[in-house]
């Protein structure tokens, strides 16, 4: 069933109560509750983090690196996502956050917003080619790319074949550091400070290219506590941002389109909304649109499941920081030569994932769907989730796939018990002859 791959969202078995909250919120129906605990179907999980957000027992966790992991490298570069700046309300400048990163163990900092500036230029170039199917779909949110791979394979040709800003930032950071410090590139550890689980997956199992330039990812939630005392203490910093306000704006939904495709693009955030609009793209309704910026998280990266600050406040903070910067656009700030100097483009095709298929052969899949439909007719249609599958339809599918049986449905079980009870009554009434 599809490729074997790492994925970042995992279950903490001890904390899981076996409730059905996560079941209902998974956009790819990748969760089942069996034996009183949730299980994640790895092939289907797109690491969007909806379940992390919804689980009140905090049983869904993202597998990210610990801060101490950076010390296995002699040289350590932090790649802060621009959403990190939004975590510190009233912070005087971006430089303060950058300096704080150097105080907790990083030997250097390179802003992902600079990678976003480079990608902005590259997107503008790509848009000049009218042969690509429209709308072009941004590849920046890895959970959106994954959901296309799982649920909308027909839209794979729409995905713009550019790496994520994080990757571009890592390539430039490593090369520049190696040159200025005269060290071998492999001695340098490059760590992304991530707002989400999907980026961790994008590092361990990239889509569109073989290997990531990033060595690991540390959750914003984890690093927040380490940074906070320093951010509070540093009154002013000599460090300053090297990114444009447009690059920093990628922290919130709409930032990418603002920078790269201000006209005739569509900005969609939140997984439900992304799915709804992708359905329309698939139906051929939005061919006149140039660009689709989709973010799995409401509000964009500031709404990531591994962020600390609430997304509205974080957005506000990011926008204030942008306002304080000279209004330079990436078109002026990034020299055109950069586009050929670093590996910005996909070098491996994205292939459909196929985990929704009932069977490898269509003939067998048809047979299974017939069985599924027959079972579905007998189910109550409440989509209650008590059986551990997210909907009656998914339950019927699970029965056909051999994972459960009809009496796992509480309503069918009740009917059967009623029948049995009636039989017992009937037997008790039979007289001795």
């Amino acid at each position, binding site marked *: 069933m599809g490729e074997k791959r790492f994925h970042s969202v995992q279950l903490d078995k001890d904390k899981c109560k076996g409730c059905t909250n996560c079941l209902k919120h998974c956009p790819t129906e990748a969760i089942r509750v069996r034996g009183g605990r949730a299980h994640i179907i790895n092939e289907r999980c797109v690491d969007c983090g909806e379940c992390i957000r919804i689980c009140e027992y905090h049983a869904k966790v993202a597998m990210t690196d610990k801060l101490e992991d950076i010390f296995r490298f002699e040289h350590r570069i932090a790649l802060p996502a621009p959403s990190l700046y939004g975590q510190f309300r009233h912070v005087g400048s971006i430089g303060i956050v950058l300096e704080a990163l150097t105080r907790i163990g990083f030997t250097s900092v390179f802003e992902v917003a600079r990678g976003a500036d480079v990608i902005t230029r590259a997107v503008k170039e790509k848009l000049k080619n009218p042969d690509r199917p429209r709308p072009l779909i941004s590849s920046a949110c890895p959970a959106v790319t994954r959901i296309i791979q799982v*649920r909308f*394979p*027909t839209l*794979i040709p729409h995905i713009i074949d550019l790496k994520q800003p994080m990757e571009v930032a890592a390539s430039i950071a490593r090369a520049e550091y190696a040159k200025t410090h005269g060290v071998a590139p492999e001695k340098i550890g490059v760590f992304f400070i991530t707002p989400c689980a999907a980026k961790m997956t994008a590092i361990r199992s990239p889509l569109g290219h073989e290997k990531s330039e990033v060595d690991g990812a540390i959750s914003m939630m984890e690093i927040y506590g380490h940074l906070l005392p320093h951010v509070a203490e540093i009154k002013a910093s000599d460090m300053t941002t090297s990114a444009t306000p447009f690059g920093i704006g990628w922290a919130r939904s709409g930032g990418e389109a603002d920078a790269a495709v201000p006209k005739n693009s569509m900005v969609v955030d939140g997984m439900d909304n992304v799915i709804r609009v992708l*359905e*329309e793209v*698939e*139906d*051929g*309704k939005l061919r006149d649109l140039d660009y689709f910026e989709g973010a799995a998280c409401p509000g964009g990266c500031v709404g990531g499941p591994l962020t600390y600050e609430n997304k509205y406040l974080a957005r506000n903070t990011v926008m204030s920081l942008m306002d304080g910067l000279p209004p330079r656009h990436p078109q002026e700030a990034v020299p055109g030569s950069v586009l050929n100097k670093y590996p910005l483009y996909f070098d491996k095709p994205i292939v*459909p994932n*196929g985990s*929704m*298929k*009932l*069977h*490898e*052969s*269509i*003939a067998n*899949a*048809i047979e299974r*769907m*017939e069985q599924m*439909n027959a079972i579905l007719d007998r189910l109550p249609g409440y989509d209650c989730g008590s059986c551990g599958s997210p909907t009656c339809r998914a339950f019927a*599918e699970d029965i056909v796939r051999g994972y459960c049986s009809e009496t796992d449905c509480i309503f069918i079980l009740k009917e059967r018990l009623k029948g049995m009870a009636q039989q017992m009554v009937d037997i008790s009434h039979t007289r001795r002859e």
Partner: protein
Amino acid sequence: MIQTDYPIHHGDYTRAGEASADIKRQLRQLGVGSATLRRIAVAAYEMELNIIIHSLGGSMTLVVDNDGIKLSSRDEGPGIPDVSKAMSEGFSTADEVARGLGFGAGMGLPNMRRNADQFEIESVMGQGTQIRMLFLLT
């Protein structure tokens, strides 16, 4: 054989696209290839919208068997006065409501014909229109 019927009501824009979405979901589960699925997605949506915009109401049917994927529709009228004219690109009789919603580019039937491997249409004034499309499994 798999068969699903979808009743479609005239003017029901709130449910527009739901039948197409369900058709896509089923075909994805059957493992229909991306290129074919894309053609069917476009044709199914045009078919669904045509019934909503132009007919008095009707239904769509999806059948999947060894011959391939069959999408058909039938409606309760009013019928198309000149089918060959309706099949030409850019011709549309969509009303104000539909045009206001961005429909009525006159590409519905031509898009269906272009995307299907076989396309048949029959229309009788006062009785209704029937369309049959076949998509081969490659």
